[in-house]
């Protein structure tokens, strides 16, 4: 059996986290290949339904990354994202899905290292959890 190679989708806001991911690249920080980034303008633009859709369609983990609280390019979009994420956590629990499969991270434009480390950690954690349809869930 081949090793489990998780599929992760990351929604990154245009102003901070996407730039942080770029910085990880310009700094040549190596991290697991499992992540696929989708750029949005703001973490507040991420519909909660995107996360469930991704899980539904086979993603093993989904991350939303935005500017640190207080740094939002749109003043307060990330605060809204935070509220919605709390709601998603509730849904995950009710669904019986492991809440660790979804993640909300604040990653600034200068935190290339944090971006790479977050992906490393997330990929490792998802590997431990196994495939989302691996039986238990």
């Amino acid at each position, binding site marked *: 059996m081949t090793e489990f190679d998780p*599929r992760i989708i990351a929604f990154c806001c245009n102003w901070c986290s996407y730039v942080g991911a770029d910085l990880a690249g310009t700094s040549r920080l190596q991290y697991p*290949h499992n992540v696929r980034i989708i750029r949005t303008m*703001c973490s507040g633009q991420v519909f909660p339904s995107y996360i469930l859709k991704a899980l539904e369609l086979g993603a093993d983990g989904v991350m939303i990354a935005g500017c640190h609280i207080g740094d939002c390019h749109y003043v307060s979009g990330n605060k809204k994202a935070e509220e919605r994420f709390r709601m998603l956590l509730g849904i995950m629990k009710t669904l019986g899905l492991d809440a660790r499969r979804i993640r909300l991270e604040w990653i600034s434009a200068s935190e290339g290292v944090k971006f790479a480390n977050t992906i490393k950690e997330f990929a490792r954690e998802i590997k431990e959890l196994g495939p989302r349809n691996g039986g238990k869930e």
Partner: protein
Amino acid sequence: MIPRIGVFVCHCGTNIGGYVDVPDVVEYVKALPGVVHAERNIYTCADDGLTSIKNAIKSRDLNRVIVASCTPRTHAPLFRSAVAAAGLNPYLFELVNIREQCSWVHMKEKEAATQKAKDLIRMGVARVSLLEPQEEIRINVTPSALVIGGGVAGMTAALSIANQGFRVDLIEKESELGGMLRHLYTLYPDGRDASPVLAKFIENVKNNRNIEIHTSSRVKKVDGYIGNFTVWAENEKGPLEIRTGVLVVATGAEEFKPLGLYGYGAGAVLTELELEDRLRSGLLHTIKSAVFIQCAGARCSDRAYCSRICCNVAIKNAMILKQMFPEADINILHNGIRAYGTYEKMYRQAQELGVGFRKYSKEIPPEVMVNGERARVKFYHELMGKEIEYSPDLIVLSSPLVPHGDVEEISKMLKVPLGQDGFFLEAHVKLRPVDFATDGIFLCGTARAPADITESICQGYAAASRASIPLMKGYVQAEAITAVVDETKCIGCGYCASVCPYNAASMNEKTVAAEEFSYATKKSYINPALCKGCGTCAAGCPAGAITPNHFTLPQIIASIKAFQPERYTLAIA
């Protein structure tokens, strides 16, 4: 429209080509449904790369373009203009990042990196198929400005806007222009008389044909948005209605009257402004000693902020007293002398003159004991470890600047926020000091925070600069990527209006008329002139009535789907 997609994969020298099998990627992409053209370039961003994009759009009749190279953050504008140059709407373009987010971060696993590049481009293809052309709308601007507040900041802003060739309405609630400057005796740092400075300002404003002055006038109502505001004001002659393109808030501040503090009210205890008033009117009696008390009512629980200018004001006034009465003992009791920047020089001059500076302890503020016309001050001197007492002829309280009583009213009228300290809150404290988050409204002077004359002048010019940009252009270019409301879906809950940081979403009265019934309700309207496209409203709209253009639900879902879920089994009900 059936998508005809062209994909251009960049080697970026070896930056991508060295870690991703680019020819393999191109072969893969060619086979994707919708893709009619795929090629690779050593540098897509170089002249020849851009030329081949333009040529392919024409020769292959492309209606969507993807470049797979580096980050859109730096390169999207370049490719977009190439696409536009070939006659295609620039928003029918997508940049897929396979360098920063692929080749550079998976340098030791070429196979996985190649697979990831394919995945990312496939996701891009799915998304670009659904993209729609976007038009950058222009909103015409009424070429005039309205400045609220005729103090130094407001007059400066009005003059500068007028000198750039625009009509300005200057509204002042008092019967004369000048604001705080009217109450000052001299100005620091050079101690010159305030009145000629004031006179010169008023003369310049009055002689400027572009400025219409409205004294004794108050703003009553404001409506509209950038480029198209209507302001209703009132004065003794009657109501005014002014149409204007931009607004500048320069409403100033006033001196805090420290009632109940430091013996204020007794004959020997004055505020700085009261002292300046006596000096100007020549009513100050001879003194043998004076004590200034700094931070009288500031940096305390009621007013946490530092009022910035009071140390400099006290130093200036102490020097005046010392020059008038050279033998007098003049001491400034302070909790840190904040003569910032080059005002340090003035602090040194006061020392040279013999003005005393004694530091009191923050925990044990000075105490004033009033006995009829006499007053004593005692304070704890930390360094000496003991109390020191003075019996001065005069006690001057350096009290902070505080917002006027009517700021809340103005804040509500303009829908611009106030900060915790009651001063107006700018769009961004670092990089947008004189802008409000709402486009077309600007801020300067002590309405923003305590500032001195020079700083108010700088800010007046700054607000003038920001305000004149739309006036000079004659239009505002709204963000192409904005959110739009589908009124048939909108349930009028008002969520969007409550979360929008730019006041772009508002609720309008509407009548829904159907065949069986009709009723009055509210519907959301998002003003494209104000929307910045963050999409926060859309993501929270319970009815799904709001679409964030260019990042629509179907577009994003298409990307998510195209991520090829071969493990897809579970359907969540």
